[in-house]
C-alpha cells in the first residue's frame, strides 16, 4: 500500500467524503480521522487536543455528580427535582425496566436540570441538549468498563458527526427546531456509543442515522421561552433513543437511508418548519393554557 501524504488541510462536506478520505489515507479508525481533521485544520497537536477533550469529559462527569447533589429547582419552578425523584426510585428498587435504564434517565436529567439551574455543563452540541451525551455515553461506558482513553476518543467521533450535521443542516433550535438540537445530540451519542463498542464505519453510520431519523420533525416550543419544559425531558428521549438505536445497529440492522441523506431531510424539514415552532414560543406546547399561565406569572 502506497502511503499518500495527508495534506495540511482536510476538506470534507459530508460523511461520504469521510469514508472516501479514510480509504485514501488508509485510516481505519473514525476517531483517528476526526482527530487528524481537527489537528490539521486548527493547527494544534493531537496530544493537546486529546488532553482538551479529556477535560471536557471531566466536566461532563462533574456535571452528573453536581446535578445529583441536591434536588434541582429553577426560579420559575418548572424544574423541580426530577433527577432527585429518579434517584429515590432507584434507591427503592422501583425501576420499571432495570437499574441501568433508570440510571441513564437519572443522569440525563441531572445534567439537563443543572444546565437549567445555571450550572456548569458542556454544550454538546447545545446547552439545551447537554444532558444527552453524558447521560447515555458516560452511563453506559461506565457500566461496560470502557477505558477512559477510548471514551475521550469517542467524543471526537461525536464531534465529527456533529460537524457533518452542522455543515449540511443546523444544530440550532431557533433555526431548525428541536430535531437539530436533541435529534443531533442523539445521533452523535449513538455514534460515540458504537465507537466505544469497537464497531466499524457502517455500523456507526447506521446507528447514528437511526437516532436522527427517529427524532425528525421534533419542534422547539419552550414554555415561557425557558430551557426547561419540555427541553429537559426531551433530553431523556434523545438519550434513550441513542442507546436503542446503537443497540439496533449492534444487532446488525443497517439503515436504508444513508446518514447524509437523513441530514439533508432534517435540513429540508427545518426549512419547512414555521417560525412559531422554532424557539419563538409562539406555537406548540408554549401556547397551551397551562404554559401561558406560566408566561404571565413570569411577566408579573
Amino acid at each position, binding site marked *: 500500500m502506497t502511503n499518500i501524504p495527508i495534506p495540511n488541510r482536510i476538506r470534507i462536506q459530508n460523511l461520504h467524503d469521510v469514508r472516501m478520505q479514510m480509504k485514501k489515507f488508509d485510516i481505519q479508525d473514525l476517531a483517528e480521522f*476526526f482527530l487528524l*481533521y*481537527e489537528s490539521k*485544520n*486548527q493547527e494544534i497537536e493531537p496530544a*493537546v487536543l486529546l*488532553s*482538551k*477533550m479529556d*477535560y*471536557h469529559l471531566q*466536566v461532563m462527569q462533574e456535571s452528573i455528580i453536581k446535578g445529583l447533589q441536591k434536588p434541582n429547582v429553577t*426560579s*420559575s419552578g418548572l424544574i423541580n427535582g426530577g433527577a432527585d425523584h429518579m434517584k429515590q426510585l432507584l434507591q427503592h428498587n422501583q425501576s420499571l425496566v432495570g437499574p441501568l435504564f433508570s440510571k441513564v434517565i437519572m443522569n440525563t436529567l441531572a445534567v439537563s436540570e*443543572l*444546565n*437549567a*439551574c*445555571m*450550572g*456548569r*455543563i*458542556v*454544550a*454538546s*452540541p*447545545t*446547552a*439545551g441538549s*447537554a444532558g444527552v*451525551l453524558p447521560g447515555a455515553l458516560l452511563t453506559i461506558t461506565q457500566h461496560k468498563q470502557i477505558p477512559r482513553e477510548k471514551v475521550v476518543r469517542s*467524543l*471526537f467521533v*461525536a*464531534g*465529527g458527526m*456533529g*460537524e457533518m450535521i*452542522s455543515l449540511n443542516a443546523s*444544530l*440550532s433550535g431557533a433555526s431548525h427546531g428541536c430535531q437539530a438540537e436533541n435529534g443531533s445530540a442523539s445521533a*452523535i451519542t449513538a455514534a460515540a456509543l458504537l465507537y466505544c463498542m469497537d464497531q466499524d464505519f457502517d455500523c456507526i453510520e447506521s446507528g447514528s442515522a437511526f437516532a436522527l431519523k427517529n427524532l425528525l420533525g421534533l419542534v422547539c416550543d419552550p414554555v*415561557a*421561552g*425557558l*430551557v*426547561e419544559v419540555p427541553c429537559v425531558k426531551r433530553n431523556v428521549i434523545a438519550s434513550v433513543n441513542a442507546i436503542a438505536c446503537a443497540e439496533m445497529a449492534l444487532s446488525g440492522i443497517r439503515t436504508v437511508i444513508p446518514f447524509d441523506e437523513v441530514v439533508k431531510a432534517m435540513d429540508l424539514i427545518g426549512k419547512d418548519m414555521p417560525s412559531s415552532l422554532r424557539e419563538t*414560543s409562539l406555537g406548540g406546547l408554549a401556547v397551551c393554557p397551562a404554559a401561558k399561565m406560566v408566561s404571565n406569572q*413570569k411577566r408579573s
Partner: protein
Amino acid sequence: MSLFDIIGPVMIGPSSSHTAGAAKIGFLAQSVLGKPFKKVHITLFNSFAETGLGHGTDKAIIGGILGFRMDDERIPRSFELAREQGIQIEFSCEKDSKKHPNEVCIEFYSEAEALLLTISGQSIGGGAAKIVEINGTPVWFGGMHDILIIQYKDVPGMVGFFGEVLGDHHINIAYLDISRDAVTEKALAVLKLDQYCPENVTDIIRKNIHILDVISIRRLSDQYSNT
C-alpha cells in the same frame, strides 16, 4: 468550525446565546474599559430583553463585567459579588428592530458618575459574541485576535506613526479599521494583531501628543482556553 464548538464550549447554562455569549460580551467590555468603575447601566434589546431574565442573561453580563469567564461558577451569584465590590447596577429593556435580536449596550460610570465608556455587543450564537460599537463608533471584533484600540486626534500621519512602532517591535497587523468623528475631531483605530501588544509598546504609542488612549486586549482564546 472546530470540533470543540460541537463538544463544547464548557459553559454556565442554560443557553449558549443568552448566557454564554452574554458573559463573553461582558468580559470583552471590561477588557476594553481596562480600569475601575462604580456603576454600570445595561440596556437589553429584543430577545435579550424578552427572555433574557429567564436565561440569566443579566447575571451572565454582570459576571462577564466582573471578569468571569463563561464557565465560571460564580456567574449565578454575580449580582451579589458586584454589590460586595460596591458596584451599582442598573438595567433597562428596549425593543429596536434595527438592532440584532441579542444585543446589549453597556455604559460604565466612574465614582463621580462620569461616563467612562459606552459599548455594545451582540451574541451571535453558539457562545460566540462580537463587540459592535464603542462610544458610538461602529467596530467588529470578537476575541479571535489580539486587539489594539487607539484613540487619537485626527491629524495626518497617525496611522504611519503607530504602524511603524508596531513594525519596529515585530507585531503584525492582520486587520485595521479606522473611523473618525468630524465634530470632536477624534479618530478611533481598531487593530487586529497576530501578536499581543505588550505594555512597553503601548507606552511608546502613548507618548505621542496626539494619542488620547491606547487599549491592548489579549485574544480570548488565551484567557478562555482550558488546557
